[in-house]
């Protein structure tokens, strides 16, 4: 997962480390040129000329530290910027990461012997964690909200929405929650059979109507079933649709009015890169989205969508789909992803 991004970040990390590492101790003669450090007059002059000058001289001569300047890392940061953009990380997100890394590193005092790499990795990690957000703990959400928790899944066609509904159903079932699935995709031929087979395989009840039926009615029935049978979670599948098809988007509005979902989850594929981010933003604007699921993350080498989506639309990433099996879905753990990208690389 995100192998290309990992390699690129490793290169950027090395570049940043060597840029900072290059700020080696100046020749012994150089600091000696600044003897007036003990002179009050000179110190006063230095203060008025440049407030940080005394500090710089002090750390250079007395404490043997170095201060990382903007100039030291400008080139490496520009390379990092290109690296992120080439990995399809959205521009505002790239800017946020660069700004964070710059803020963490510039002005930092580095003691001789202190690991530059550790300093860079910690800055990169903090920057990535800032844009990745906190993720979304579905288990905790369900346990802290009145049951049934109603989750509506939306997204464009062919991104793996129905399979994701089944995978999340299986995940929640294994966590001890009772689940019912509403076969709200009454539009695509064979969609009802598809989700019905999934439900049978994982041992979850499904509510379905005929093909072409009103999805709002199916999902209303599903919620009613969940209430009367004290089911913990309702997973509502819907037909894939593009955000620019107003009739289908209106249908989604109606579904929302009828079933009153607690969570609207937007599903897209990680391999779509920046397109997924743009579409998620559109869906969020039109029908709203509370959390995101990215499928096919195992096929995605760049990782741009996963890095950008939470920061761009301000909604957390909940799950990553990483394969064909029902268990191939992992709750999104920002710290875990960052560690995988930067540790041991």
């Amino acid at each position, binding site marked *: 997962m995100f192998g290309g991004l990992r390699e690129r970040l490793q290169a950027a990390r090395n570049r940043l480390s060597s840029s900072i590492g290059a700020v080696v101790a100046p020749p012994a003669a150089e600091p000696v040129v600044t003897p007036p450090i003990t002179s009050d007059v000179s110190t006063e002059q230095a203060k008025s000329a440049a407030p940080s000058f005394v500090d710089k001289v002090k750390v250079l001569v007395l404490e043997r530290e170095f201060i990382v300047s903007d100039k030291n890392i400008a080139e490496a940061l520009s390379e990092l910027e290109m690296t992120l953009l080439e990995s399809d990380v959205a521009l505002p997100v790239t800017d946020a990461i660069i700004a964070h890394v710059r803020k963490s590193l510039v002005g930092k005092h580095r003691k001789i012997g202190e690991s530059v790499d550790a300093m860079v990795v910690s800055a990169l990690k903090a920057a990535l964690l800032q844009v990745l957000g906190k993720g979304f703990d579905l288990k905790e959400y369900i346990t802290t909200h009145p049951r049934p928790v109603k989750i509506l899944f939306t997204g464009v066609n*062919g991104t793996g929405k129905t399979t994701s509904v089944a995978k999340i159903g299986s995940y929640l079932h294994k966590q001890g929650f009772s689940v019912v699935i509403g076969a709200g995709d009454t539009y695509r031929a064979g969609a009802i*059979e598809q989700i019905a087979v999934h439900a049978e395989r994982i041992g979850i009840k499904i509510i379905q109507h005929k093909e072409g039926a009103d999805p709002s009615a199916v999902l209303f029935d599903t919620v009613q079933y969940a209430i009367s049978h004290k089911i913990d979670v309702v997973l509502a599948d819907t037909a894939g649709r593009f955000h620019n098809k107003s009739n289908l988007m209106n249908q989604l509005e109606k579904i929302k009015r009828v079933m009153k979902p607690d969570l609207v989850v937007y599903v897209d594929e990680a391999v779509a890169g920046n397109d997924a981010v743009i579409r998620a933003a559109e869906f969020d604007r039109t029908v709203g989205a509370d959390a995101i699921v990215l499928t096919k993350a195992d096929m995605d080498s760049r990782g*741009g969508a996963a890095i*950008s989506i939470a920061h761009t639309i301000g909604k957390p990433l909940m799950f990553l789909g990483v394969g064909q099996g029902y268990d191939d879905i992992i709750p999104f753990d920002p710290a875990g992803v960052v560690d995988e990208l930067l540790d041991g690389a």
Partner: protein
Amino acid sequence: MMLQQYLKDYGQQAEIFVEQLNLLENGRMEAFAAIEALEAMVVADDNTVLLQIGGGASVRAKVLEPEKVLVAIGAEVVVERSNKDAVEFLKERIMEMEASQKRVSETLDKLRGQMTEINKRLEYGYQQSMAGHQEEE
């Protein structure tokens, strides 16, 4: 019935992966063509290229600055690169696409393996039922 649905399911998934493979292959071929054009542009004497304008029609056009190339690097960002750097960038993208192709192909093979397995079971079930019929007769 259930097996047939499995088969249909896998078939649909396989179609999506085949589509993805085609997209990757198109991207790879496009990148190769671009590299060829960029390299040829530098060695050509008078910077003249054939510019396709659609519908199979082309015109001769002079490239003003063959050394400066605008490249879409991702995230909808276009940057200016030197001809050499642009070629390098495209080569890296080709490698990336080839790695993705490999991964998608592996998944596709796995799916096809599962489909073959299901087909075998269906065939076996069918033969069993036919044998049962014949015995009854």
